């Protein structure tokens, strides 16, 4: 069984507990164990960088060092956490001075960063480590006819610059396809949802959410699949606000892709944390025959 250190980040503790559960449950089906990183700390979201980039990097490095101590590769389901971890890992390795400085701080916590592990987003585990073929093979309940809008958002593809991946990625579509569902042509799938603005520039954030919901609806999606708790909260919880602001009538369910995957794998809804949505996902259950396991 392949094991990874799971970094839940602050949001997966409660706000996105369903993402946590569905991630653990679905990966288990593929013989992958996500073991929560012992004594992790908040990675600072983006906020730390506002104040001090070095501090932000140190906080992340502490988590990486913890995972290294366990000898496990690092997996984050939150895109922001992932981005922080990915880039800190990269920056430190590229900059010996930074490396030295950070290790000097980590010493205080009996830790050292060696740069020996890989950093993954949970979707990488499905897209690259497990792969669509294996997913297909394990799907017991193909979600035939379910139209899913794959929402990449920003940070699982950016600011990395590997070839076309950041402008024309396909891995999310491939995963949805492997579940037996149909990925819709979701043109705005890479556009920012504005999550980080909801507190600071509400007007902009709501417009950004509107654009996404509108495009998902036009593309015929039954549900939006996300791979980030911030996106999920933003797209889902602010639908009412968007409707009020723009006089629209969105009722678009927004689920974690792991939850949808869970359905395809025949896992019980409960185990996937389904039920805690603010926009009901009920319509999609009536639409696809979901054979639930126990």
């Amino acid at each position: 069984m392949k094991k990874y250190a799971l970094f839940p980040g602050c949001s997966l503790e409660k706000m996105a507990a369903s993402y946590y559960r569905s991630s653990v449950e679905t990966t288990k089906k593929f013989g992958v164990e996500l073991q929560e990183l012992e004594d992790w700390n908040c990675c600072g979201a983006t906020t730390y960088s506002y104040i001090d980039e070095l501090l932000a990097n140190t906080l992340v490095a502490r988590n990486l060092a913890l995972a290294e101590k366990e000898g496990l590769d690092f997996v984050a389901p939150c895109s922001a956490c992932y981005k922080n971890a990915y880039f800190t890992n990269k920056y430190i390795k590229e900059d010996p001075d930074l490396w030295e400085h950070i290790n000097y701080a980590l010493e205080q916590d009996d830790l050292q960063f060696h740069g020996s592990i890989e950093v993954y987003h949970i979707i990488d585990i499905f897209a690259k480590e497990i792969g669509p073929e294996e997913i297909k093979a394990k799907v017991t309940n193909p979600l035939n006819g379910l139209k899913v809008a794959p929402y990449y958002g920003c940070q699982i593809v950016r600011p990395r610059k590997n070839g076309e991946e950041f402008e024309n990625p396909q891995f999310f579509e491939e995963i949805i396809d492997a579940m037996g569902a149909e990925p819709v042509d979701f043109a705005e799938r890479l556009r920012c949802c504005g999550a980080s603005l909801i507190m600071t520039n509400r007007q902009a954030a709501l417009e950004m959410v509107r654009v996404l919901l509108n495009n998902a609806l036009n593309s015929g999606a039954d549900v939006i699949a996300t791979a980030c708790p911030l996106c999920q909260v933003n797209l889902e919880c602010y639908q009412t606000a968007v409707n009020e602001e723009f006089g629209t009538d969105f009722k678009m369910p927004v689920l974690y892709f792991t939850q949808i995957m869970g359905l395809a794998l025949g896992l019980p809804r409960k185990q996937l944390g389904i039920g805690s949505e603010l926009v009901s996902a009920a319509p999609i259950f009536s639409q696809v025959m979901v054979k639930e396991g126990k």
Partner: protein
Amino acid sequence: MSAKPTFSHEISNLMYKSHGNPTKSCIQCGTCAGTCPVAEYMDQTPRRLIGMINANLKEEVLASNTYWFCASCYHCTVRCPSQIDIAGVMYAVKRYSIWNKSYSEDLVGPAFSEAFVKIIARSGRSYEPILAPTYMFSMEPKEFVQEAFNATKMMLKGRIPVLPTRIKHIKNFQEMIRRIIPIGGES
């Protein structure tokens, strides 16, 4: 060379080399602003902000809301033909303004950031219920009602924790932070 560094140098110095080319290499093509999902709401487009930095218009840059409104989506960064990390520049300006306490008063971003950082320095983790009031005071009444409404709904669905969690060796953790910068110590 003892000449005082210009504002654009100061901003460049705030970024590690891994963050792409210096702002000076901007060709003012507007790809960033054409890409930016928030551009419409900013008082200066990202391109103009870069131009203003290069022109050392420090006061005007700091007074702008652009860098606080940047959603860190990095779309401009990956597209910039001069390989400038525009999102990184936005962070650099944020840091600069926080250190100099020179952001404009009516912005929520800085207060929110500081509150967030303090909580983490205290417990090692973030906690939404404490955070909420620190930014909500600045909202319009209508927004406040909605926000409270959302929070209550989430609380009911069990999606907001009742008590903050904290990490084990918090002392070590705080020592570690002190080795980087002295903030967080006083709270």
